């Protein structure tokens, strides 16, 4: 077959079929089109201001590596005037992070950016491997996700930076839209798609400049720019709703490549249609509204699903339904036809600070601290008992946990 000319420049030989619209492009045009689209996203949403200090949440994976490379390129090309740095979190999963952190360290040199690495161990006193040893392989993504969200913010605060960008791509956002529909989570449906997640009370702004970029194009971009990234999958299990949504989206993409973007568009519109009184409430009262609702899950699991979360929700719904048949309808003496329009009053979240660690939380104790409570309660207390009494441990602060860990490792 004769080589096809590039759809864009009509000169060079096309070597790439764009996953987004199946246009055939040459290498140079593809890189340019990809960068221009990210630039348009940044300009269209006024994401940055000149002189802003921005931390790139870097995992060493393809998304964050491409994000760092593109931001560096665009910053120089269009003169954004950004002060960029890399921020990495070490979850403490052996074999998963060790190598990818090495990649981040190389990236820091390649892109000439300062790098900060924060470990779960030093932040929480628990590495993910220790968490999994304690609670098993099911449901540990909750811990990882909650810890990571706080870790990024804490890391940024430590660096005195108010804006963290993450490598979430269009596939991630589309997945979240579908997932929130499946689990009927309107508050998150109203927030999950916005490019910036920022709460009035939090001073750290989160954004995802790659939200319109396809995962496949990110891989192509990394490949054609020969970026140094680490390709691996999280070895622990993904969440069932996300797994189901992911499988569905992969099928949709086969039918109509634009559908990932179309879901993002639908998600953005639906977010604007979520009733106001729901928008600012959290369905699962847990941690900080805006901080917590960021896209969960890890970078690149496949659609493996354990089914646990979906089965649990199904069970709950079935129980609600069977309870419904036992209910007796009580009518008010004067039949008001407007009973349908009466809005249920939804309890709003008010943001405060966690009593333990001072992190933003809508509860008395933030999600991370309550998870840690559960973990610490079951931790063998051999060496600790000597120095930390039961009472002290009940109110253990981050510092206390850090000490705990030091003692554990020493003993």
């Amino acid at each position, binding site marked *: 077959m004769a080589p096809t000319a590039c759809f864009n420049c009509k000169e060079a030989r096309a070597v790439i079929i764009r996953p987004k619209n*199946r246009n055939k492009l040459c290498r140079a045009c593809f890189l340019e089109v990809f960068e221009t*689209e990210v630039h*348009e996203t940044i300009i269209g949403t006024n994401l940055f201001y000149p002189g802003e200090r921005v931390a790139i949440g870097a995992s060493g994976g393809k998304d964050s590596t491409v994000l760092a490379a593109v931001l560096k390129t665009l910053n120089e090309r269009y003169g954004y005037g950004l002060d960029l740095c890399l921020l990495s979190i070490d979850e403490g999963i052996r074999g998963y992070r060790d190598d990818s952190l090495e990649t981040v360290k190389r990236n820091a040199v390649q892109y000439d950016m300062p790098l900060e690495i924060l470990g779960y161990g030093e932040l929480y006193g628990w590495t993910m491997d220790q968490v999994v040893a304690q609670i098993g392989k099911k449901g540990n993504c909750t811990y990882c996700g909650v810890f990571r969200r706080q870790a990024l913010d804490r890391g940024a605060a430590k660096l005195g930076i108010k804006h963290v960008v993450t490598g979430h791509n269009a596939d991630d956002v589309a997945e979240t839209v579908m997932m929130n529909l499946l689990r009927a989570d309107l508050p998150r449906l109203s927030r999950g798609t916005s490019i910036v997640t920022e709460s009035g009370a939090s001073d750290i702004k989160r954004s995802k400049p790659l939200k319109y970029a396809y995962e496949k194009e990110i891989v192509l971009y990394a490949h054609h720019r020969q970026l140094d990234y680490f390709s691996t999958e999280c070895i622990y299990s993904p969440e069932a709703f996300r797994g189901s949504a992911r499988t569905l989206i992969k099928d949709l993409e086969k039918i109509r490549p*634009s559908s990932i973007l179309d879901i993002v*568009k639908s998600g953005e*519109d639906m977010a604007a249609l979520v009733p106001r009184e729901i928008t600012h409430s959290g369905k699962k009262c847990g941690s900080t509204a805006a901080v917590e609702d960021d896209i969960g899950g890890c970078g690149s699991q496949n659609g493996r699903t354990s089914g646990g979360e979906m089965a649990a929700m199904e069970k709950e719904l079935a129980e609600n339904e069977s309870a419904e048949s036992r209910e007796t309808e009580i009518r008010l003496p004067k039949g008001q036809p407007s009973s349908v329009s009466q809005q249920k009053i939804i309890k709003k979240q008010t943001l405060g600070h966690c009593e333990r660690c001072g992190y933003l939380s809508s509860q008395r104790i933030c999600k991370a601290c309550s998870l840690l409570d559960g973990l610490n309660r079951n931790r063998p207390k051999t060496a600790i008992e000597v120095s930390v009494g039961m009472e002290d441990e009940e109110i253990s602060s981050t510092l206390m946990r850090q000490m705990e860990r030091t003692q554990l490792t020493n003993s």
Partner: protein
Amino acid sequence: MPAKELVRPCMDCKDAEAILDTRKRHYCGECFKAFASHKVLMRMSKYKQMKKTIGQAPKLLLPLSLGVSSSVLLHILNGDIERQLAKTFVNIGYELNMIVVDPSTILTPDTKHDQVYEAVTKAFSKLTFTRLPLHSVFEYVPDMKEIIQEYAGPRYIDDESRSDEYRLTAFRAAISTATSKADLDSVLLTRLVAGYAKSLGCETVIWGDSDTRLAAKTLAGVAKGRGASLTWSVSDGMTPWGVAFDFPLRDLSKPELEQFKGVCKELSDIVIPDEPVSDNVLTKNLSIDELMMRYVRTQGEKYRGVMANVSRTANKLESTTGSDDALCPLCGGHVGNVKGNSGVTVANQSSDNYSSKFCYGCMRSRPEATC
């Protein structure tokens, strides 16, 4: 008299053998029908209220595909009307009209449809039925020809000397993918039904969509970039054309409606059964609507509640009907972003957005669209 000895009595009447299970209960045929009818009539009770308020029974239009779901809805409503007529003080909450869109003008001609249509009009002889071809959309939506011409783009040539039927067939033939075809067919069907409802002076169209189908329609709508239209395409609410849409079967799943048909002998000969789902189709050759229907049905076997929740969630979105936002002349959806959405998906697509008159979802299904 000794009590009847039942192996597994119906949980409601306890007087007959249970023959089917749903929602962790087992029923005899009659009690199951009563259970399902109750779910529907609860939803219909608002029309009695409306009748009190406006002084006359609201006119409703029921689009009938002659498939399982809409036939069950027709049967239940007809039963309600008959029951009322048998009473001394007749109080029917609504006036019911039926429309059947001739499937031979949408899919391949099917002789069975004619027979079934005959049988249905005979079985429900007290009700009014109208059968229309899809191309009568040009009659009930007067500017449809111009809209289609503009929508299809400069490369599409509309031969004005030909019949409506020919022109619509030519337009539909110009659409390349299964997804776009199914998408535009449903847009045209919706427009025809809404247009016909308006011409009859109907306040509301009651659709026979089961919760299974509504969940699939919700997910498909989202996947086709039509998220903003969910407030009337799968929710009970006002459409852009001044006719409300209502979904009285939203509390019943497709398998339950099939169970209903199974125990209802009156329906046995007057329902066109669904085409069996073929496993030998490549995913990429399915339309998005088909994919979602398959997804919801297979997932629904295990997670019935989760799937039912999807349409309930969509039903909670706030309608923007009545605001002065620009609407798509073809499907009635929002042009550009819904107010409050600052996303730049639309701007990103500027290259193929030659006419901003149509909505995002319709632009995706346009005949010349590359994807």
